[in-house]
Structures are given as C-alpha cells and as structure tokens.
C-alpha cells in the first residue's frame, strides 16, 4: 500500500509539474521525492515477493491499514518538505514582499 500510494502521488505530482510548467512552484522537488521513494520501495516489494510469493498479495487487514497509514504519512511529509522549501526559497518573492510591507 505504501508503494501504491507513493506511485499515485508521483504520477499526480508529475502530471501537475508538466501541466503547470512553472519552475517557481518547485514541483520538481515533489517529483524527485515521490519517484525516488517509489523506485526504492519497488525494490523492497520485489525482495518481499521473492520471500513471500503469493502471500505478498494477501496481506493481513491490520498490516494493510498500517501500510496505508504509513503511505499517507509519507505523502504528508513530502508535502511538508515541499512547502517548507517553497517558503524558504521564495522563488516568487511573496514572503520578501510581505516582510517589506
């Protein structure tokens, strides 16, 4: 579930990045984070599949809930990192303009 949620987040972030085509939004940062994590969790999933075989696709409900909760938390963390980077870099000078007022 963590891998699945991260892949969805990566695809959405990439689609928004392509549609907006705006460097000042720093959407590339989100894409790198989600795709990097997706690739790494894919490797994790493959190794787990080699170990568990078919059982990998039938996780216990408790594990699935925990994994989903983790996936959502990971997305939340990535979004927080992105917002903090956006506010610190302030590519559009919004914060700077507000502070000068």
């Amino acid at each position, binding site marked *: 579930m963590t891998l699945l949620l991260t892949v969805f987040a990566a695809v959405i972030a990439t689609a928004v990045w392509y549609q907006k085509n705006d460097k000042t939004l720093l959407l590339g*940062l989100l894409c*790198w984070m989600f795709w990097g994590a997706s690739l*790494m969790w894919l*490797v*994790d999933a493959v*190794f787990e599949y080699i170990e568990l075989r078919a059982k990998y696709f039938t996780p216990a409900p408790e594990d699935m809930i925990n994994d989903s909760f983790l996936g959502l*938390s990971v997305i939340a*963390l*990535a979004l927080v990192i992105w917002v903090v980077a956006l506010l610190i870099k302030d590519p559009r000078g919004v914060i700077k303009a507000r502070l000068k007022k």
Partner: protein
Amino acid sequence: MACFIVPGAEAIVVTAAALILKQREAKKAALPQPTGVPAGSVQSEAKQGFSRKLFWLAGLLWGGVVLLAFEHLWHGEVQPFFPFLTAATEGAGAVAEMLSEMASVGVTMAVLVTAVWAVMLVVSRSIEKRPAAKAEAQA
C-alpha cells in the same frame, strides 16, 4: 533494516560530484569559447549541463532516502539517537542481517535508481535533438 544507507551514500557522492562539475562548468563558461562561441551565450550554455543532469540523480536519490528514512523510523529500525540503527543494539546476528540487507536490497535500490536515471539521460538526449530534426525537415 537500513537499506536506504546505500543509496544515501551514493547520494552524497553524486551531489559532491555534481557540485564540483557545476563549478568547473561555470569556470569554463566564463572563458572565451575555442569555437568562436562567445562566453555566456546561449550556445555555450547549451553545451554545459551534465551537472544539471547529475542533480537529477541526486534528486531521485535524496528524495527516496528521506522518505525511506521516515519509513524506517516508523518501523522502529532507525532511532533518532546513538547508535541510530536499532540493529546495532540487538547483537551480532542482527548486525549481520542488516549488512546482508544493505548488500542485497540497498545495492539493488541504488542500481535501479541509477539505471532509471541512465534511461532518463537517453530519453532527454533524444528530446533535445527533436527541435533540430524538425527544423531540418522543414528546411
């Protein structure tokens, strides 16, 4: 257990290499171009840029490492105090298992991310060539 350490180490090396390369490219761009291309021109800027592509790899690696570190913290495999890796407090067997996982899962992670980056390089190169090919076809 601590598989993200391997791509983390690669991320440090790649970032350092990209920063050094960026500095060299900046110095080279400041010099007059041997082919007669003026320094700082669009043509000279188009020639540089491998450091930018190295930063893509660094971005993928760092992004993955940060989120995977959080996952390991979630599962209690990493702790925010010394010795940081929970396996280090659980005896030699746990450390051996951790090292084995780093060598298998960690190395595969680093290799896969690097391979995907290599594919990105090939694709980006073909995309960069596209406008020139279209212009040639029109002429």
